């Protein structure tokens, strides 16, 4: 029975926010790799990964560009947990009409992470240049039928997925607890 099931490869980039040093090498290199032709210019504003950084609250969260949202969403919540404030809008991977994150600076067109599949470089560029180890790349096989929800939620078990599933407050709480434990 099992053998008959179709297998598919899941590609995911895992994020360990505690390891991020804020170097933005990921943003810089993603923008260069996706320049036309590749590597001919640099502009982090064109990156498909964007590090949400707030030095005053020790927030360092790399987010990759997800789908384009045609309208602004209704949810604009602000959470304060352990003295750190989080805005759902800041952590959202969608390019949407209300902000410039994940939009091409000149055309305003949405940017989307393509897992560097267009580039034939092995592991995604952002992962390759992330020496502090905040980003890591994982590939594994799953049965096709079981992966329907994963497919929709992108190929990572990342922030967007977790936030959708557990709510931002829960995710942030967990991150804060993890940060405390590892300190």
């Amino acid at each position, binding site marked *: 029975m099992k053998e008959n099931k179709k297998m598919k490869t899941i590609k995911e980039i895992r994020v360990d926010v*505690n390891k*991020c*040093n*804020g*170097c*933005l*090498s990921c943003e*810089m*290199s993603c923008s*260069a790799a996706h*320049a036309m*032709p*590749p*590597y*001919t*210019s*640099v*502009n*982090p*504003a*064109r990156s498909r990964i*964007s590090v*949400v*950084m*707030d*030095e*005053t*609250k*020790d927030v*360092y969260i790399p987010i990759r560009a997800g789908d384009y949202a045609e309208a602004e969403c209704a949810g604009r919540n602000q959470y304060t947990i352990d003295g750190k404030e989080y805005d759902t809008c*800041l952590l959202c991977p969608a390019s949407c009409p209300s902000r*410039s*994150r994940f939009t091409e*600076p000149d055309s305003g067109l949405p940017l989307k992470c393509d897992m560097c599949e267009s580039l034939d470089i092995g592991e995604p560029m952002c992962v*390759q*240049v992330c*020496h*502090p180890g905040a980003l890591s790349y994982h590939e594994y096989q799953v049965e096709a039928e079981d992966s329907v929800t994963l497919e929709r939620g992108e190929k990572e078990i990342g922030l967007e997925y977790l936030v959708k599933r557990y709510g931002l407050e829960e995710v942030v709480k967990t991150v804060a607890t993890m*940060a405390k434990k590892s*300190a």
Partner: protein
Amino acid sequence: MRYAETGFNLEIDLTRGNIERVATDPELTKLYLGGQGTADKILWDRVGPEVEPFSEENLLIFSSGLLNGTFVPGANRTIVNTFSPQTNLHAHSMMGGYFGVEMKHAGYDKIILSGKAPKLVYIYIHNDNVEIRDASHLAGMGTTEVQDHLKKELGDDKVQIAAIGLAGENRVYTASIEHSHCSASRGVGPVMGDKRVKAIAVRGTKDLQMAEPEKLFHICKDLRKDLADNPGAGDWMAVDEDDGFHHDNFSWGNARVRQKNYWSDELQQRWTDIKYDHMDRQTGCYNCPKKCHNVISWPGRKRFSYKCFGKDTYNMASFQELDFSYEILGVAQEYGLDSYSTPQVIAFALELLEEGILTLDDFPGMPEDIRGRFFHILDMIVNREGIGDKLANGVYWAARQIGNGAEKFDHNTTKKFEQVPIKLGKVNPMFFLMIATGEKMNITQIEGSFPQDPLPTLEERQAFVDAWEAVPDEKFKKYFMEWERRNEMPSGAVCDIVDWNEAMHYIDDAIGLCAFVSSFRGQFGGKTQYNIHNIPDLIRMASGLDLSKEDLWNVFRRNRNLVRAINVRRGMRRADERPPEDHWAVRDEEFEQSLLSAYYEFKGWTQDGIPTPATLDELALSDVREDFEKRGIYSAAQ
């Protein structure tokens, strides 16, 4: 097409509110590269020797290094230059982080501020849109507080901000400019305050072009990995918790007391626990895999960060432990104060109190305990309250303004600037020259390529020089092989070594490389990431400028001589080039002066420390020579 640089400076006249985007001359890039190099050309051309630091005519220049924003890892320094109210000389300052890179993406290599705003303002730069905005609502705000506030006000968490705190607003001479986890000190903070600019916020979303980008990208990808793995780059103090080096060898209090056996295993363990119990993370700067900034949360304080020796200065000035540094750094950072010189000013004040030159009446409300007293005096300085108004001018000026014998207690300044508190036995010829002739005011910005100490055995030396890629010339290997005692080195070798040390800093300050990956780090371990051999290739691929190693060395000489010329024109002479008298217990005036003479000659300077006409002509600085002649600078010096 300009590569690596944008080819434009942003000129802001704060008096008139005039804003201009000015194209720059590519010939100047060839001559001075960028960063401090091209900034000094502007200071030379536009700010005469009669200009007071606190005046509309003084300029405050933020420069992005030539390689900033390119693929070259560790190139991210923003160099800030002006004339310092403390020294009345050229101010060299810089900060890491993101600011200079953001400037490039906004389309500017430099931000040049002139004039004075009629009231407190902040400057918002978003690509081509530049506005001078009212900042009355930001007055008195702490440095991280104002950055946070402006990000929200501007609705953009990617905006990069350089700001002053209350110390800068009140023109405290030791005030700094703060940005992210970085800080620019040594004279620039009070000038920003004098210009009434609370903050500059920059957001840039333009492409940056390079001459050979594909090649450079891949070379830099490997370099970045090497850099991440290279223990010879970055701040080792971020990971090595043994800080006996500073605590056993540097002086405590008002640069007075050495505690040779202070450090112990027990202490190290206790301090390590304090650090890791309160550290949120370690961060780096743009495009650098290192983690040099220790980010600390301390109860009741704003989150702060420090790097390197910055954690030792307050606890050593006050004879306290690490927890005191942590207790006060968060406050001092919000005020925007240099952590190297400020604690010395406070320790100086406390010494005057002990000696009866100042009395408790000078410090109304003074607490009993030393910690309380540090905080109290810090507040008085920042608010320029009572005696704090004099102390706010740094040790040199405060001593003279207080008088009554206070001058004697100003024993650790050179060129009116507080030096790193090191008091040793016998004169070290290399450090003598560096402290005497350096124009960056802090030894950490001058020393760095040649090791501080010899190795004991020939085998160890051989192994060291065999792996030593950074040396510009084989002769340095010979010097090292033959070096037996720290303080004994032939004068010719000393001149070469000091020159090399300076060279790398001047190159870094032009191209924006961090000293921790280049100029500062060779003295500890020898294996820097960048050196005179690999930098020219990177400059070529980034900017298109084809410089040989020799050409690059000549840019250093040109930039070095230009700083010297700027200061000579403001009156600096041989007599000013003296390390603190008690820097070494045993001095040898005759030897020191003959060494200084030899160095001047080596540098192509007169015996009064003035670049000779031949030196200036050789370096394409004939306009400087002509200016010197017109002013009679050579004839007066005879």
